[in-house]
């Protein structure tokens, strides 16, 4: 499930900037939109108020999960470009929109060009880091993030990106430290920024089985920014881990009161299934149809679709086809993991190992990835690795979504290992 969050993170981090105005009762993004519209009235010939308006809409997309705001942002940028063609702030906002649309290759190319023009611009490095992370080029992401922190020590956008990379590299304590440093600097007026950061911290706690800590962080996040869809989704995951399925379903329905995403549809179906709800099958079907329609789109749910076909959907060959399609676009840890798992399900164990080994080499600590690695090793009769990975999965998070399967696989691996020893 962390995969979903980290997919979205690339775009979400890109938004972590910019101010607000004193319009009470409005969210920070709505305030920025109102502020910018007022500034446009005062200075209709200037480009910057249109850039600010675009940023307001981009922020609103993050607040709501509704990407249609990005179209309004794009329109505002056109107005900006009419006034000052090629202005830097407008181009930076354009990079953010590309990230918002999951057009990572285009975003990376565009941001690199911007970076050549203005090599001291901190956020441009951030956009490079976002796109590179989403595409799985962690070396470039790390280099760009380091530039951010070198250019201005302790800047919030830099800390947030560094935290995300620490998660990838398996340093969850370090990631929490960076998130915490960033959080302490966020002014209280930036409620959505605060909630976003707390939710990221909660995701880490959840991924390491610290459910109470995660729950506490998410409660704080919802106090800061009530009804925040990202927080509700994470809270549903906590309740699922606690086997409180009805509470999880309540939270997911609240989450879907706003904008529904393909990944949230999959999560809903999965939770209905775990709850033993009779509507689970139709929920899966609904997700499958929509996800299949989007397989060739930039914004898709291909990884969720792969996992669905490897599970309840029971179409391993189709899962592999989609995984291969996705892996041709990006090589991030979660796409590689899904591909490896699909290869394994299609009895291509050696190829599966080749896919998952580089993921593990990064140091990432993720219960599902460890489980997949263990299962693949078991198929290859490498029982020592199998037992090690499966134990890691269970030690890391005894309440993970793959815990039951990991327990079964571990028992099988231990038994197989014993049999192999006896034969010797």
């Amino acid at each position, binding site marked *: 499930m962390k995969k979903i969050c980290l997919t979205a993170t690339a775009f979400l981090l890109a938004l*972590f*900037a*910019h*101010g*607000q*105005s*004193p319009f009470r009762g409005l969210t920070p993004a709505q305030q920025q939109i109102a502020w910018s519209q007022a500034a446009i009235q005062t200075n209709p010939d*200037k*480009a*910057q108020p249109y*850039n*600010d308006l675009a*940023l307001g809409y981009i922020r609103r997309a993050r607040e709501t999960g509704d990407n249609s705001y990005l179209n309004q942002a794009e329109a505002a940028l056109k107005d900006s470009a009419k006034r000052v063609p090629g202005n*830097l*702030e407008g181009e*930076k*906002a354009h990079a953010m929109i590309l990230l918002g649309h999951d057009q990572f290759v285009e975003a990376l190319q565009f941001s690199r060009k911007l970076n050549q023009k203005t090599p*001291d*611009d*901190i*956020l441009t490095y951030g956009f490079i880091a976002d796109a590179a992370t989403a595409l799985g080029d962690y070396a470039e992401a790390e280099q760009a993030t380091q530039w951010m922190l070198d*250019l*201005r*020590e*302790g*800047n*919030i*956008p*830099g*800390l947030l990106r560094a935290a995300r990379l620490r998660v990838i590299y398996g340093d969850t304590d370090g990631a929490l430290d960076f998130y915490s*440093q*960033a959080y302490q*600097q*966020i*002014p209280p*007026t*930036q409620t959505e*920024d605060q909630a976003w950061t707390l939710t990221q911290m909660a995701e880490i706690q959840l991924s390491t089985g610290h459910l109470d800590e995660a729950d506490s962080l998410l409660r704080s996040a919802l106090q800061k920014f009530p009804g925040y869809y990202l927080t509700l989704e994470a809270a549903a995951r906590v309740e699922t881990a606690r086997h409180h399925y009805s509470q999880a379903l309540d939270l997911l329905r609240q989450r879907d009161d706003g904008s529904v995403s393909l990944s949230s549809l999959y999560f809903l179906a999965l939770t209905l299934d775990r709850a033993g709800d009779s509507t689970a099958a139709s929920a899966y079907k609904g997700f499958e149809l929509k996800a299949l329609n989007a397989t060739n789109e930039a914004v898709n749910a291909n990884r969720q679709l792969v996992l669905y076909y490897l599970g309840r959907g029971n179409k391993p060959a189709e899962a592999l086809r989609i995984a291969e399609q996705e892996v041709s676009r990006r090589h991030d840890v979660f796409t590689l993991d899904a591909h490896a798992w699909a290869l394994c399900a299609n009895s291509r164990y050696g190829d599966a190992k080749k896919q998952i080994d580089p993921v593990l080499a990064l140091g990432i600590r993720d219960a599902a990835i460890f489980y997949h690695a263990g299962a693949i090793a078991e198929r290859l009769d490498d029982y020592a690795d199998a037992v090690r990975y499966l134990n890691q999965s269970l030690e890391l998070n005894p309440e993970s979504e793959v815990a039951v399967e990991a327990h079964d696989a571990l028992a099988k691996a231990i038994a197989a290992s014993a049999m192999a020893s006896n034969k010797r």
Partner: protein
Amino acid sequence: MTKKIAILLFALVLAPGALPAQNETTDALIKSLAIKVKMYPGDYKAYAGLGAAYLQKGRETGDSADYELAKAALSRSLDLMSNDPAAAFAMTQMAAACMAEHQFDQAYIWAQKALAVGSGDPSPWAIAGDALADMGDYQNAADAYSMLKTVYGSEDEQQAILYQRDSRMSYLRLVAGDAQGAIQLMQGAVQTATAMHMPAENIAWSDYQLGEEYFQTGDIAHAEQAYLAALRLYPGYYRALAGLAKVRSSAGNYRAAAALYDKAIAAVPYPEYAAALGDVYRAIGDSNKAQKEFDLVEFIGHLSGINKQIHNRELALFYADHGIKLDQAVVLARRELEVRHDVYTWDVLAWALFTNGESKEAAAAMSNALSHGTKDAQLFFHAGMIYADLDDSLQARAFLQQALAINPHFHPIYAETARQTLANLSTKTGSSPIQEAANAR
């Protein structure tokens, strides 16, 4: 006003990369940056630097036109770069420019914007706190100041942030009536500034501020030491000159006081300095010179639209103190109250209302001025006179006694008025307090 402006502008000097070495004159800096932006019109840093330099110029001269030039340059910088942590500097400068023009709500917004871009520098909290304090929201100001801490940067940079916090917290303590706590914090701030080898003007400002706190508590000897320390460090420092003039005036040494005020005005013609000098001349008995200074007060106050905005409170107090344009005094005080709700604005409104014979309304305003527990001789004097006019002799006596206990020489003219009114209250004879105040003029 002077006190608050000083606090906020000090932040500019400490802001990272704000200003170059002090030996480089501000005029020269403006000239070189103006050339730079002409050569490189897309250089947001140069525009931000130019804005900061104009702000510094405004601080040095008191000419509000410089603030407008500062804002224009900063606005240009933000047109070029606003969605980046690097924009925090220009945003912070913009907040400071708004503070200088008494646009407190705008200053607060810009400070918040500067924080929102996430530069890692907590300095904008200082201006956010200053704006809140001027808007009378002392609790949130304290919360804002408490955010002035950082784990980033060199030890000196971290100390500089703590200095900003402590010097500001000191002011809040003073407003809350904890003079001892305020002085302790400011003494610590002076030591920090000295130990860090901050620029001379910055250390001098700290000494001056300490002097003000001592003066407000009636510790004239220590106030004098602090002002002199500021002048030793930074000769000709106008704030310290004016502070020392107050000390001389309170000791009855009016000629020395006049000379010091003259020097301060020559450096920066603040209307409150001219008004104080006029009062000193009156105390000497030189009504011609006094009138010249009083004319200067009005001239400065009306020099530009922005000046009217900046000096509302000083003009209101001046009119009320000197029995001229009394209805205008109330108008100005009310106008100031629209943007500023701190204890001193409530006090000036109360005093203006009292001089207009509106003592009941004045008492209501005065209760707001005193609601935070501020122990200031001027506030207590005004409160005493108001309650005396309302025939509440018990309250009136208590306030006037407090005023004189804090500082028997708090004002060259009104200290005597306080004594006289107190005597009249004791014997229950004599003219009305409003008449007493009028007589004093």
